[in-house]
């Protein structure tokens, strides 16, 4: 839905020759050596330019030659991009005219098609034929837009030549063909050469020289056919880089080297006039020979609208750019001047005509931006502030009012030739430019600014929260005379290992690679603690089996995590070929499918058998027994649901349409009923005074069974397996922790709390997050889970289901299961003692989570201009913060539930902010 603007087409043919990474410096770096007066100009326009001549500078000589010889028909622009300076983001910015926003986070890894309105889309809508060659990111962004495309794989950074040679092979023949209107050639060699060898290397220079040759040939062809009636009579050539690069060849950040690129625009007709000085934003530069050369500045934001105006198509809907004066002026050479009396005042009218046109374009441009801003702030939750909007509306109203005056004047003087129009037009242009500039500034400040003060405050709050956690752990311990340490030997080994592992995991988040492989890192550390425990068991000659089972479980987790990570990789652009062979394996072995259907149901039956065995023990009496029977019933219902869904078994009893939504809703109902029953009994049931640890176990089992059915249902067929794995893992951690405790019981004070099992519990929970096929990105959410049992979308309900699915096994169940760590350890101890331990365990769990989140915050702060900030760090940060808030809320709930009226441990809920 483009802004329905109608602009006179200026360039029927447009040749966007996208030379990736064409550095501005490569063209202009000879400036500072010329002379003192020129040095001033150079230093003002190129502040980041080193004054030393480097071999890679000055290699695209043809551009400089043209820019200095052709005067106003060939220009070099300094194009300023918005960070992040990655190809995908930049291409999006170039074609949509918008700023990179948080919305891009959703599809960070892949390069999905651009769904927003964009320049290419408008071209196609308006019947232009677009031909693309080079980087295959274009075909991913615009899958159905190109009439012809010659994509080449872009991900192999080490390959300097495939893309470029492919481009060159197709470029020159295409130039002689008539069947296109817009040609895009995207070269990648310079980018890759920079990544691999650095800017200061011979491959880089070779590449640049190659480009120089290609450019020369292209210009030669275009020149030869640019005569009247020729094929390229109205062709505009644009040579541009989508982003710069640092001296090491990296890009993605916001440093001047990365942000500043250049655009070379060339029109093969000489414009009849030169731009009046008051509009001319360019600063004159001089090349090596001392000839004058025009250098203007253009925001990359403005690129989409300016080209739209030049080609004569509607502006992209979401663009906030402004039609650039200089680039637009380049088109004036082909301006169709119909309907005006040129004969009267030849000297003035062309300029005036151009100005009128420009004002027209700016008027539509402003109207389009204003409409976008209105729509945006009406639909967005966190739009612009009221004052900002008012101010913008004010500026726009002023410009609009003046516009109606100007048009009146224009109509009055249509057939005359007078000088009075020019100042009015100039004022009008100024007003529109003012409006558009202020909108762009506002948008930029709202969308890409990092408030360091607020970030610091948030970080400080997290630090304070960590301190409070630590102090309260100590305080609780002191309250009951316990000490953290083991005997009088100082700090126990378990504590050291736990701290070490937690710190290592936390600090691993400082690198993006480890965030990407977070599941593997958590698993690695969990396995390390497992091996550490195995050593203990060897020493004690006890529970060797548990330790080995635990290690085997970790190995199992590890393979599941790898499968999950490969799923993540599938969505990325690197491994698009991946799912095909998985599918082929599945299709080749139908037995495999059958097993995949049967195993979850069998495991589900096993789980219900375990539950049944648990309640048949003497602890569970009365209401608890019936409640857990309810869970077993839900398990059976889940099994029936899956069986009916798969269609492998034809179930004659249930008609498909009813059961599909009916059974899940029944399960939700049972789960909700169980949880409310538990809360109810907690409120009104008196403590019967029986052994507290037993009642704690009963409560925990009740709570877990109530929650588990819903979680398993939402997680789908992997649910039962993961549940079984977490039960086994939990049991192993518990008994291994007990062994430690029993050993200590004999000598040191029995109050010591070992942090290692709590740490392992936390890590196991983290592993479970990745085992269940999630990862910290918005495309890692399993949206399908939100629609189990419901067809229509209601925000809150579906959000709750999605949260349960995402955090079920990693946050909800582990936190409610934590009392197991305490309850089994000392069955005969008094109540106060168990509660003290429980609160300590909960505090430790909170501390571990908070530590991780704190370091994640620090990392995001450090890397806020990193290449992957929207792709990796921001989602990770969001997931962590949501996880932390959920953890703290759940800890509060759990402590309310388990502590009852005896004591309410006050948990702090650290608010986190950016």
């Amino acid at each position, binding site marked *: 839905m483009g802004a329905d603007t109608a602009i006179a087409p200026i360039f029927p043919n447009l040749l966007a020759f996208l030379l990736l990474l064409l550095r501005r410096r490569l063209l202009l770096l000879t400036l500072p050596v010329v002379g003192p007066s020129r040095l001033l100009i150079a230093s003002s326009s190129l502040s980041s330019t080193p004054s030393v001549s480097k071999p890679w500078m000055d290699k695209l000589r043809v551009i400089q030659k043209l820019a200095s010889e052709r005067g106003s028909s060939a220009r070099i622009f300094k194009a300023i991009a918005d960070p992040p300076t990655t190809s995908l983001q930049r291409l999006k910015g170039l074609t949509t005219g918008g700023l990179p926003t948080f919305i891009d986070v959703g599809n960070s890894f892949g390069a999905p098609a651009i769904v927003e309105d964009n320049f290419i889309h408008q071209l196609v809508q308006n019947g232009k034929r677009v031909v693309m060659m080079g980087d295959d990111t274009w075909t991913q962004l615009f899958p159905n837009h190109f009439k012809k495309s010659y994509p080449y794989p872009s991900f192999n950074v080490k390959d300097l030549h495939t893309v470029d040679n492919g481009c060159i092979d197709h470029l020159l023949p295409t130039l002689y063909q008539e069947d296109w209107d817009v040609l895009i050639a995207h070269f990648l060699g310079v980018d890759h050469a920079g990544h691999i060898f650095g800017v200061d290397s011979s491959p880089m220079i070779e590449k640049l020289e190659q480009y120089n040759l290609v450019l020369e040939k292209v210009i030669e062809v275009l020149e030869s056919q640019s005569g009247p009636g020729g094929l390229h009579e109205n062709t505009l050539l644009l040579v541009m880089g989508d982003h710069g690069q640092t001296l090491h060849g990296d890009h993605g950040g916001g440093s001047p080297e990365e942000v500043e690129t250049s655009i070379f625009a060339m029109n093969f007709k000489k414009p009849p006039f030169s731009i009046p000085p008051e509009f001319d934003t360019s600063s004159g530069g001089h090349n090596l020979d001392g000839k004058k050369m025009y250098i203007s500045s253009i925001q990359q934001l403005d690129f989409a609208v300016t080209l739209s105006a030049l080609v004569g198509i509607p502006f992209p809907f979401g663009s906030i750019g402004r039609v650039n004066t200089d680039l637009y002026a380049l088109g004036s050479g082909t301006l169709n001047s119909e309907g005006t009396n040129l004969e009267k005042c030849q000297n003035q009218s062309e300029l005036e005509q151009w100005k009128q046109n420009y004002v027209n374009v700016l008027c539509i441009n402003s109207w389009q931006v204003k409409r976008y801003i209105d729509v945006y702030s009406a639909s967005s939750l966190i739009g612009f502030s009221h004052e900002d909007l008012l101010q913008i509306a004010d500026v726009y109203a002023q410009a609009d009012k003046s516009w109606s005056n100007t048009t009146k004047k224009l109509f009055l003087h249509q057939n005359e030739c007078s000088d009075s129009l020019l100042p009015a037009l100039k004022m009008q242009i100024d007003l529109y430019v003012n409006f558009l500039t202020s909108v762009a500034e506002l948008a930029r400040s709202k969308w890409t600014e990092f408030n360091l003060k607020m970030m610091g405050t948030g970080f400080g709050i997290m630090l304070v929260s960590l301190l409070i956690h630590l102090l309260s752990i100590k305080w609780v311990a002191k309250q009951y005379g316990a000490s953290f340490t083991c005997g009088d030997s100082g700090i126990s*080994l378990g504590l050291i290992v736990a701290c070490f592992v937690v710190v290592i995991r936390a600090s691993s988040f400082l690198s993006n690679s480890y965030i990407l492989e977070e599941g593997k890192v958590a698993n690695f550390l969990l396995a390390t603690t497992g091996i550490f425990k195995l050593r203990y068991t*060897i*020493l004690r*000659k006890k529970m060797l089996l548990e330790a080995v089972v635990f290690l085997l479980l970790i*190995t199992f987790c590890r393979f599941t995590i790898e499968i999950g990570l490969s799923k993540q990789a599938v969505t990325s652009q690197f491994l698009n070929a991946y799912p095909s062979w998985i599918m082929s394996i599945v299709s080749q072995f139908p037995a495999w499918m059958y097993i995949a259907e049967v195993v979850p149901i069998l495991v589900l039956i096993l789980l219900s058998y375990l539950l049944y065995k648990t309640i048949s023990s003497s602890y569970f009496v009365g209401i608890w027994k019936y409640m857990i029977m309810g869970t077993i019933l839900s398990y059976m219902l889940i099994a029936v649901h899956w069986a009916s869904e798969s269609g492998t078994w034809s179930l004659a009893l249930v008609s498909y349409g009813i059961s599909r939504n009916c059974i899940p809703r029944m399960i939700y109902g049972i789960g909700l009923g169980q949880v409310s029953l538990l809360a109810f009994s907690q409120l009104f049931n008196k403590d019967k005074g029986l052994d507290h640890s037993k009642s704690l176990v009963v409560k925990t089992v009740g709570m877990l069974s109530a929650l588990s059915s819903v979680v398993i249902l939402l997680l789908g067929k992997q649910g039962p397996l993961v549940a079984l794995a977490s039960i086994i893992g939990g049991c192993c951690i518990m008994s291994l922790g007990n062994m430690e405790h029993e050993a200590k019981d004999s000598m040191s004070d029995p109050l010591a709390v070992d942090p290692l099992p709590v740490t392992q519990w936390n890590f196991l929970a983290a592993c479970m997050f990745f085992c269940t096929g999630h990862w910290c990105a918005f495309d890692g959410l399993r949206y399908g889970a939100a629609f189990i049992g419901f067809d229509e979308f209601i925000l809150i309900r579906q959000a709750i289901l999605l949260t349960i699915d995402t955090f079920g096994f990693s946050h909800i169940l582990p936190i409610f299961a934590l009392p197991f760590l305490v309850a089994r350890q000392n069955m005969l101890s008094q109540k106060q003692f168990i509660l003290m331990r429980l609160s300590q365990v909960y505090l430790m769990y909170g501390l571990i989570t908070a530590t991780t989140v704190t370091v994640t915050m620090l990392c995001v702060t450090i890397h806020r201009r990193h290449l992957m900030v929207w792709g990796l760090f921001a989602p990770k940060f969001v997931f962590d913060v949501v996880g932390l808030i959920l953890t703290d809320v759940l800890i509060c709930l759990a402590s309310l539930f388990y502590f009852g009226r005896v004591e309410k441990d006050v948990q702090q809920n650290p608010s986190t902010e950016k």
Partner: protein
Amino acid sequence: MNYTKTFLSVVCPWNRDSAPSPTYKTKSTFLDPPWQPPMNQSTAHTPRGDRLIDREIKRSSNRKNMKANATTSSVKFSAEPEPEAEAEVSPSSPSISALEALSVHLISGLGLGLALLLANNVYSVNLVSHPSLTLLLISVIECPIVILLYSRHRKNREECSYLKAVGRGLVGLPVGALVNSLGAIALGAPVGTQYFLTTIYWSLMMSLFTIVPAVSVFGSSWKDWQRIFAQTNCRPIGSLDFMICLPAHGAIIGAWLGAWPMPLDWERPWQEWPICVSYGAMAGYLVAIVVSFSLILVRASFQHDKRD
């Protein structure tokens, strides 16, 4: 002259299988500065003397009610209070002098270096370009060195012949490789046909660093294994324990640390499994060898001072 003889006897242990232990003399001459008169037999302490002194220190510092037998005393480890931790030290337990320790360490370390050098110069492969071949070469060269060297210092010399020790070392090699590879897979080593051979060779090398020396020396004595691999709070008693325990732990910790660069996106060839893990293991092994030897030296000089 004396030195060369000892060196020969170290390298060719079968020459002196029945000899009592002439190394004590050489040890004293080796350790004492040349201007001092050679120590006579009475002051040169026996390994049992070592151990008794150790025990005395411990006993006086720790548990006073502990019963001590004059000949075969049980040792209670100080910080670890568990009852099973009493290690029986049999009278025929192996003893080792600083010089022997040095030569064992030196030869195994040099063997490693030789293997790397051979791979680089003769076969012109290295760990980065041909990881499996290089690891195989290291294993092949280290295997006889480690088994033959450590079998010389086997425990229970009366019951266990040299050949038997070598035999159990050879049996321990694949078993240790299995244990190591399982551990690596639990920690996240990649599995797949293209990694199969390299994982095998890597685990053979790790087995030579960790399990094989212990198997050659201790056989299947559970208590010794416990002492070597599971004890953390008390230091090993004899020099031989140092020599087995420290390099094994060094190799494992080095490999653990070496795994950390693997996920980084530097796209260097050495980040592949198991190249940096092997580098880490070798580095850890070599560092631990140095530490082990210096600890033995310190201990020896400490006891030397104490005797004076």
